[in-house]
């Protein structure tokens, strides 16, 4: 029998479908190993059979897959359990290194205990730190509010400091003449304790006033500074006593022999009408 006749005898199909007897199977496997054509014929029939089977597939019930997987997982566990047991029961290992074995199991136990301990500590610390976090968060909010408030105050203080610094700079100026005006210079003054000081820049002719001590006037009246030039009073501006912490900028006066303060109606007068409180000579 030649190869072609053998192939077309039905042995290929008989073998693939599992209908060949033991002798036929053995012979077919020998023929496959020896002849590529036989292998080829077998593969062709296998593929035709497979394709036909795939086209006629009937999907099994849905839960079948999970049942099978559950089974093989149990089988896998049994296999690995057997393997472990075998490894433990290898006698040479037990005999040669029993001490190491015991020690290593001890270590594992300590490590396991330590792990649980650390976990508990970690959990406790988490709770503690969360509490702390909440508390710090609240405190932070408070501090932020305070900080904003302080920044505002700081701006106010800085503005005030700027004023004092510029005041100080003016006072330090060598061209600045200081004219003290005590109430005692005015016999008719309603307040003999009253004191005010004029700072007069002889170069720029700018005039500044410091209220040292003057009584608070009624609300419809205001103090007015006068420069007396050749016997004539010249208006140098009105001023408030309250919040007169620094130097009050008055009108520019080019020339004067005397400075004086009178109490006038609110807004001031063109010529002095009210009583004179303080007075000082420019020298």
């Amino acid at each position, binding site marked *: 029998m030649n190869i072609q006749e053998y192939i077309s005898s*039905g042995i290929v199909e008989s073998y693939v*479908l*599992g*209908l060949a007897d033991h002798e036929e199977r053995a012979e077919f496997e020998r023929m496959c190993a020896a002849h590529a054509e036989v292998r080829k014929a*077998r593969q062709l029939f*296998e593929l*035709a*059979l497979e394709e036909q089977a795939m086209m006629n597939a009937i999907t*099994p019930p849905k839960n079948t897959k999970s049942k099978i997987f559950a089974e093989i997982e149990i089988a896998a566990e049994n296999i690995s359990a057997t393997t472990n047991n075998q490894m433990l029961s290898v006698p040479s290992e037990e005999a040669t290194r029993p001490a190491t074995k015991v020690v290593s199991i001890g270590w594992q136990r300590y490590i396991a205990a330590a792990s649980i301990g650390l976990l508990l500590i970690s959990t406790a610390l988490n709770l503690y730190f969360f509490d702390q976090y909440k508390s710090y968060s609240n405190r932070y909010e408070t501090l932020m509010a305070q900080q904003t408030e302080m920044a505002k105050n700081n701006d106010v203080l800085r503005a005030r400091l700027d004023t004092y610094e510029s005041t100080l700079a003016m006072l330090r100026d060598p061209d600045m003449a200081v004219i003290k005006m005590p109430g005692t210079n005015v016999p008719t003054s309603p307040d003999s304790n009253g004191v005010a000081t004029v700072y007069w820049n002889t170069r720029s002719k700018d005039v500044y006033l410091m209220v040292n001590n003057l009584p608070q006037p009624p609300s419809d009246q205001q103090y007015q500074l006068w420069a007396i030039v050749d016997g004539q009073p010249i208006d140098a501006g009105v001023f408030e006593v309250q919040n007169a912490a620094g130097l009050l900028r008055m009108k520019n006066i080019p020339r004067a022999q005397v400075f004086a303060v009178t109490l006038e109606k609110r807004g001031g007068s063109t010529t002095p009408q009210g009583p004179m409180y303080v007075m000082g000579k420019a020298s």
Partner: protein
Amino acid sequence: MGTAVTYTEHELVSLLKDRDSKAFGYLYDNYSGALNTIILQILNDVELANDVLQEVFINVWKKIESYDPTKGRLFTWMLNIARNASIDTLRSRAYQNSQKNRSFPDNVDALANRPSSEINIDNIGLKKVLEKLKEEHRILIELAYFKGYTHEEIAEIETIPLGTVKTRIRNALIQLRDHLK
């Protein structure tokens, strides 16, 4: 399934031998339907067929080491496992039935448990191909492949000589192959 992964047969076998459960899932998704059909056609009973299908896949998983690719494709190997398992079940059940219910027709249970789906399992796959064969050929494949009878048993049942059984089966298989192409 949801995964677009496909394996070549070589990759699949190598992964299965490494006990890769993902590859096994792929194997199941791909082939369970085709194997289910042949099991149903042999057993004619949905519940029994489902039990056998599970048994087949568990055996494939356990015995994958013994699969030899030089002797045939993976599907061929699995198909033979499925057929053998089905025939074992059929025979043990037929034996039990014959012992228990001698007064009842053999196939009463089988008829009661037939697949409830519209698919007529006798009208698809290999069984459909069989219908194209001559009656004398069809009967022999039916007995040999779907009932698992040996040639000697068939000779006895059909009251034809053993040599004739062998020749007819071979001829039937050649025709079957031609119809499959």
